């Protein structure tokens, strides 16, 4: 009786072992019954959120699984990024990453891109340097001349030191021997309110913000080698056209999609295929054109390499602004 029992037990262990070794049946990724969550690490309704919502809407046309947007804002973009890093690396949670991920990582608020892997790179949203319509400057050269005459008398506002506009203003100020008084405000809306109220002399804005307030702003420079695709802004000269070719600063906001490191390669490829189809769709290309977003496509390892380039660009600026994680 005992022997019979032992044989049965051994047989069970063997069968179970073989079954375990074979693993669960392969499920196609993404499972049509599952939901893929795109974590946007900023509040709903903001510039970054609107771009990713447009993309996700289009991505849903290329997969049977449902893709949704979840806004998890806070601490720059670190709160949302940390949430993604705390969830399984299975490809069902993806992050709206970008230049903000690089700054948050360098500031030590998150492990960020060191624990992320790229899916696709999307675009740059180049910033515009502007002054109030009632201000005396018509060109950037005039503005710079006045700033050099009385260093730190002219105030240069950004939407927050840790964000993309903060990095840009600090970088520009470094380049121009710190002649500006760089002052951070509490987000883009706060900067615009203070700018329109003329509490700050110079501001750095997204193109859509400038287009909305064209009658009260004089745009002086677009921080990108190419001019804007937005009709009202096509006369704004690039920093290269204005003779500042050696200005090495991030152009503005860069946006991409990433997943947690360790996500299976085939899942990453499937996500990259879906996102690429949405990116290349007429609808998204037209949307980018309308919003002045300049395409900067990269895929998987190319995006990882691009993040390394961004780190090299951002590091000295954040170091100068004393924003690095010590």
């Amino acid at each position, binding site marked *: 009786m005992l022997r019979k029992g032992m044989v049965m037990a051994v047989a069970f262990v063997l069968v179970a072992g073989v079954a375990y070794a074979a693993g669960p049946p392969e499920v196609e990724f993404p499972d049509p019954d599952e939901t893929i969550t795109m974590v946007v690490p900023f509040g709903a309704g903001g510039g970054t959120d609107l771009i990713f919502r447009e993309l996700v809407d289009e991505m849903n046309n290329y997969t049977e699984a449902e893709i949704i*947007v979840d806004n998890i804002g806070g601490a720059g973009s670190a*709160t949302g990024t940390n949430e993604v890093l705390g*969830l399984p690396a299975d490809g069902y949670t993806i992050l709206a990453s970008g230049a903000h991920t690089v700054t948050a990582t360098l500031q*030590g608020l998150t*492990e960020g891109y060191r624990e992320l892997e790229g899916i696709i790179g999307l675009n740059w949203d180049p910033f515009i340097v502007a002054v109030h319509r009632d201000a005396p400057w018509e060109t950037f050269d005039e503005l710079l001349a006045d700033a050099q005459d009385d260093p730190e008398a002219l105030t240069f506002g950004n939407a927050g030191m840790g964000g993309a506009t903060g990095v840009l203003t600090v970088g520009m100020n470094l380049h121009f021997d710190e002649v500006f008084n760089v002052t951070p405000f509490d987000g883009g809306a706060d900067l615009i*309110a*203070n700018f329109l109220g003329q509490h*700050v002399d110079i501001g750095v804005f997204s193109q859509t913000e400038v287009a909305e307030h064209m*009658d009260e702003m004089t745009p002086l420079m677009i921080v990108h080698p190419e001019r804007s695709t937005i009709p009202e802004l096509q006369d704004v000269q690039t920093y290269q056209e204005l003779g500042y070719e050696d200005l090495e600063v991030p152009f503005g906001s860069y946006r991409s999609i990433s997943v947690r490191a360790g996500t299976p390669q085939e899942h990453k490829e499937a996500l990259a295929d879906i996102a690429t189809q949405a990116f290349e769709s007429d609808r998204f290309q037209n949307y980018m054109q309308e919003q002045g977003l300049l395409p900067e496509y990269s895929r998987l390892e190319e995006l990882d390499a691009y993040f390394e380039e961004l780190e090299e660009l951002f590091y000295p600026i954040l170091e100068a602004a004393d924003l690095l994680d010590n």
Partner: protein
Amino acid sequence: MTEFLSGVALIGDPVTILWIMFGVCFGIVLGAIPGLTATMGIALMLPLAIQLETATGMAMLLSVYSGAIIGASVPAILLGIPGNPNAIATIYDGYPLTQQGRSAEALIGATVGSFVGGIGSLILLALFAPLIARFTLRFGPAERAALALVGLTIIASISGRRLAKGILMGAFGLALAFLGPDRITQTMRLPLPSVTMGTPLANGIQLVPALIGLFGISQALYDISRVKSGTFTPPQVSFRGSIPKPRIFVRMWRMMVESLGIGTFIGAIPGAGASIAVFLSYQRAQRRRAPAVEGGEAPQLGSGALEGVVAPEVANNACKGGALIPALSLGIPGDAATAVLLGALLIQGVVPGPTLFIDELPLVYAILGSLLLANVFMVIFQLAGISVFPKVLTTPVPILLPLILVFSLLGSYAVEGRAIMAASFNMGVALVLGIIGYFLKKNDYPIAPIVLGLILGDMLEQNFRRAMRLARGDYTVFLRSPIALAFLVLAVVSVAYALWSSRRHSDDSDTTHGEADD
């Protein structure tokens, strides 16, 4: 006229009206759950709204906004827990009224106040939006810092005789506000940075979990201890003679007008927030209390006076119309909820700003019309709920108190939506502050100054330092701005008045002073 009719047509169809009704209902329920805010409700409904016609979608979102604000007053009055930060000041007299068995009276007061605030600010929005928006642009960092200072002086008036304790608690609130990143340099201000850096504490203490902890959890713990010691008297639920006569509200007209002005104006200053408006209007109501009704001594504010519910509710709802002023006329959101509303408009291809009143006039009329309808439905649903809401108080205490604790913890968790780490952290914050609040309550320390410190600390510090940076360290910037100077004078007068008033009351030992009962 054609534009007006086109605007009416945009929202006049039965489907839109049904969406408005749904939005108000959803908003009231959402607002009544501690921790769930108007901003969260609008963000939740955003994907649905963008599938609808622009005017219908906006009408629905505005209805959620309106509903959530009045909904927050329900737990404030019935349980002493503000549903969201806008309802903080409503608890001072709302909760004592409930404890006296006059919850229906308080709920009606809140509804009337909300309606007056909502409609009044709507009228101001329709008539003077561009003008007010232009004026609020004069509020730069120096003016906002001075306004925050005026707000902090409210600590003196809501602390009553416990002035020293109130100041101490205000300082505790300020200390909490300073945790997290320095907003100017982004340098971290954290205890044990090597441990706390990658945690949600790096983002500082969030207001909503702090509120839930300090008001909800601490109150439940306090009540449990009173049940244990046999000193707890459950609130009475009685409706007899509890419908206030209309003339009582008519007598409050001056106070309502003041609160409407305060709410609309503060709401229109981007970043100032409703919390400061409700406290300022409460403070004004304290000083301009309606005369005693039907002879006899009218109750002091803080001990169950109807004015103490009406004033902050007028201001609270007026902030809503106020916040829409810069949003629609300049494209700058007045608060977090209107930021999401602006996002919804942008998704639909409508660019808010000065041209909105020219290019999209029918849509502007549709927005104003839907706000009007939302306010009307808000009154209808709220009045219908008045006989239902207080039934929560008939729940036996051994069930009610643990339920409050559970909902408080859930509410603090829900603030961050699906962000598990941040949500768990918020629950921890609520629990720790709840326990601190319990001991403070037991030792007769006022709680509200902590919240004021937490809210205004950030506003004061950021704007003060920004003003100094813009002025290259020149302190006279606060004296050169007429608005900032006026606020500084007001702050000094406010503190002097509170000190004088406090001394007068302590001299007269027979007079019982109406301390704010936290």
